[in-house]
């Protein structure tokens, strides 16, 4: 039995060594540009994860974020909380997607890095039951008398004491009117507060303008990784007006494809100068709408042609210079050699025949 186990281990080990040793990777020097690919793929993989989770029964996912991260499965961090250190926000999310309403939990550890208040953003796309909890950090447990209030704007919300030093409220986010900022405040010797900003997810798109050429194709992508948009709409800004890009309007030139619930793509074929400008993609969620701005620049092919010709001319000039220098230096060598030759002939005529043969006998 032991032998069989050892054999299995050895087999595993051998295969592992073999396959790991053969996984070479692509060659040459430091790749400084993997970040583009990796960020893209992270988005892809997140989408996959989300889809995967939707298919399964209640899955609990506890993620502890130490640094500024990208949104992932109903978990978002505000920028203040991104400083690595002891005062971090721990966010816990539990999703049960059997029912249409998901239940999410968010926690904030007080105080934050700044010392008095800490904020975080809660992105919601679907109707959800959100439980917000403020936890007092252990080092501040010496604070004895304080008052905890939860409020949203001017409205106070009644809370429950979860434990001795944590307090929570439950918010039922059923429509966009429930979005806003919810805060918990500890008033006592010190005033500490934690703020939860409820908002629809932000749309991710290319910040820099997309550059394309006349009669070429341009592709613009908008995505909200990790969230499900009900529908996407594209707008084009003409002057100050916004025109909806309706596929039936110019079916041959505009192609809108919904790659998944969270990615949309606008493809414009046979570009013209008029297509240059601002574009908007709008995602409609259950709880509201979110917009993203993109820019398209249409250039003529003359634009890159000028630097191209400039570089080609530079190459031709350099090659010509090097060739001239070489011819010149060989000519110089020639004239020097000729001078030497004349000297030798002169010597020869002086010395006589025998010595000239010595000259020509070269040791190789």
């Amino acid at each position: 039995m032991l032998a069989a186990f050892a054999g299995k281990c050895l087999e595993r080990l051998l295969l592992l060594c073999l396959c790991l040793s053969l996984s070479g990777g692509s060659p040459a020097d430091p790749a400084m540009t993997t970040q583009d690919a990796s960020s893209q793929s992270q988005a892809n993989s997140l989408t996959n994860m989300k889809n995967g989770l939707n298919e399964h029964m209640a899955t609990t996912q506890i993620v502890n974020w130490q640094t500024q991260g990208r949104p992932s499965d109903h978990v978002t961090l505000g920028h203040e909380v991104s400083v690595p250190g002891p005062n971090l926000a721990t966010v816990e999310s539990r999703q049960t997607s059997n029912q249409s309403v998901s239940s999410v939990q968010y926690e904030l550890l007080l105080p934050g890095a700044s010392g008095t208040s800490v904020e975080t953003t809660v992105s919601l796309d679907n109707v959800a039951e959100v439980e917000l909890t403020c936890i007092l950090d252990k080092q501040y447990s010496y604070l004895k008398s304080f008052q905890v209030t939860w409020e949203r704007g001017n409205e106070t919300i009644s809370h429950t004491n979860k434990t001795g030093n944590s307090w929570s409220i439950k918010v039922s986010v059923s429509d966009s009117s429930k979005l806003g900022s919810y805060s918990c405040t500890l008033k006592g010797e010190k005033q500490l507060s934690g703020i939860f900003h409820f908002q629809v997810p932000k749309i991710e798109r290319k910040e820099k303008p997309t550059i394309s050429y006349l009669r070429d194709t341009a592709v613009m992508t908008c995505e909200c990784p990790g969230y499900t948009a009900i529908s996407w709409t594209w707008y084009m800004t003409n002057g100050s007006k916004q025109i909806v890009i309706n596929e039936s309007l110019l079916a041959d030139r505009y192609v809108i494809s919904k790659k998944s619930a969270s990615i949309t793509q606008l493809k414009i074929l046979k570009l013209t100068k008029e297509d240059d400008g601002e574009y908007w993609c709008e995602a409609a969620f259950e709880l509201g709408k979110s917009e993203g701005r993109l820019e398209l620049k249409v250039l003529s092919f003359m634009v890159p042609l000028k630097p191209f010709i400039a570089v080609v001319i530079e190459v031709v000039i350099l090659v010509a210079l090097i060739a001239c220098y070489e011819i010149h230096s060989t000519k110089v060598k020639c004239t020097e050699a000729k001078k030497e030759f004349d000297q030798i002939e002169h010597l020869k005529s002086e010395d006589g025949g025998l010595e000239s043969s010595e000259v020509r006998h070269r040791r190789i």
Partner: protein
Amino acid sequence: MPPPVSSDLGYVPPDGGWGWAVVFGASISVGFAYTFPKAFTIYFKELQAVYSISYSQIAWVTSIMCATTYGGGPISSILVNRYGSRPVVMFGGLLCGIGMVSGAFCTSIMQLYICVGFITGLGLALNLQPSVIMIGKYFLKRRPIANGLAMAGSPVMLCTLAPLNQFLFDSFGWRGSFLILGAILLNCCVAGALFRPIGPGTASVKTPVTKEGRGALKQEVTEDAMEISSPTNLPMKNKTEEEGDRDCCEKINQYLDFSLFKHRGFLIYLIGNVLMFLGFFAPIIFLAPYAKHMGIDEYSAAFLLSILAIVDIVARPTTGIIANSKWVRPRIQYFFSFSIAFNGTCHLLCPLASSYTGLVIYSVFFGLAFGMVCAMLFETLMDLVGAVRFTSAVGLVTIAECCTILLGPPIGGFLWMEWFKISTGRDPQRSVLTILNLQEGLQPSEGTLIDTFGDYKYMFIKCGVVMVLAGTFLFIMNYYNYRMLAKEEKERKAKEEDPKTVKKENEGRSNWIKETTQDGPELEPLREEQEGPKKEVNGLIEV
């Protein structure tokens, strides 16, 4: 120990002068050849969107480019043996330019594969090998320094090409960038123009004008300053007469020296290098993703690679200088083995790095080790086989490396799936895809984070083990090789002392030297040969 600066070239290389211009040209060529596939990855996202393809499909472009660059080695060698370095490099530069410019007008991914992948890759292959070969022709005493400087072109080019690519992409889009990159690649032609041919005749001009030298000059003058002098013409004529009598093996060996596979040093180098390449490049690719998974943000992770590149720039010429010193040069193979093992040790210690500072320290040492290995990669091969056979040797070595680099990941991925099935008893799904995607530089999804986090460490440990093994193997085998060479040298010296034997050169020298020395002083034949071999000049192998 073998004599450190023996040469079988047939002439004394200048070790300076125009050689430094050649080193500069070589660094440009080498830089483009190694860094262009890397800097090209900036365009992937856009191209994926335009052609609606997956990451794997677009990554094939750089894979094909790398494959052709390495696999085109033998073709390079054959062409250099036939035509010399200069025309080959200029033609290579032209091919690169044409490939990228035609890539700018592509309408499908297949066209991209051919234009950017294949044609540009072939052009880069025709750039890489001849550059390295030229250094061996121009340098002997200072060859390690020249090699180190030429290889330093790679990180320098990376530091400039990556931001340049980003700038071009932001200003002109991908089509315009390809067009301009094509023009930039034409600078390889400039590098090629610097590769002035050098051979047994030309070198004699540079020596001080002795009695013998004057005679050579006289011949040159009468031959209209052609760079190949008469004594070369004479034996070349004999050679061409004999060519018909040679069998086809020798003819093939003239273009690509397969007899190298009987060369002990070459075989050691080949096996050691193939072993080393299994774990050479993976850490660079996984450094940034590993850093990101340790919780470091994207820009700091990219900064690690910048640190690596900067240390690399400094390390390569420094290694060249160290390798050139009188203590190291005779034992350069040991130094090479040591640097490979050092590289491996760095990787083995990497999993101990638990913070950003630790990773920075690792990057510094890794950059140092990487630079050391790269600087000596070709120098050691030149040292083993000699500059004459190096032309063919480099081609054969690169095609072996190419197979390792390309076939490794797919086979590795397949074997990983089998291992996973056996060890966990279930079908690998997301985890495997994650690992396979890891090979392409993608990040694993958070769900399998905990699963695969251990595997990053595995990757580093595995690379470290492979490199240490390769280093140890090379160390032991080179110790054996040095001993055998010393023994052969002793036997050779014993034979030379025999007065009956005519003075023989090293094994690498061709027969024509023997013939001319045996014939003694020539007066009439030399003069007659001036006009005759003039016709042969065109058909002669330019070196």
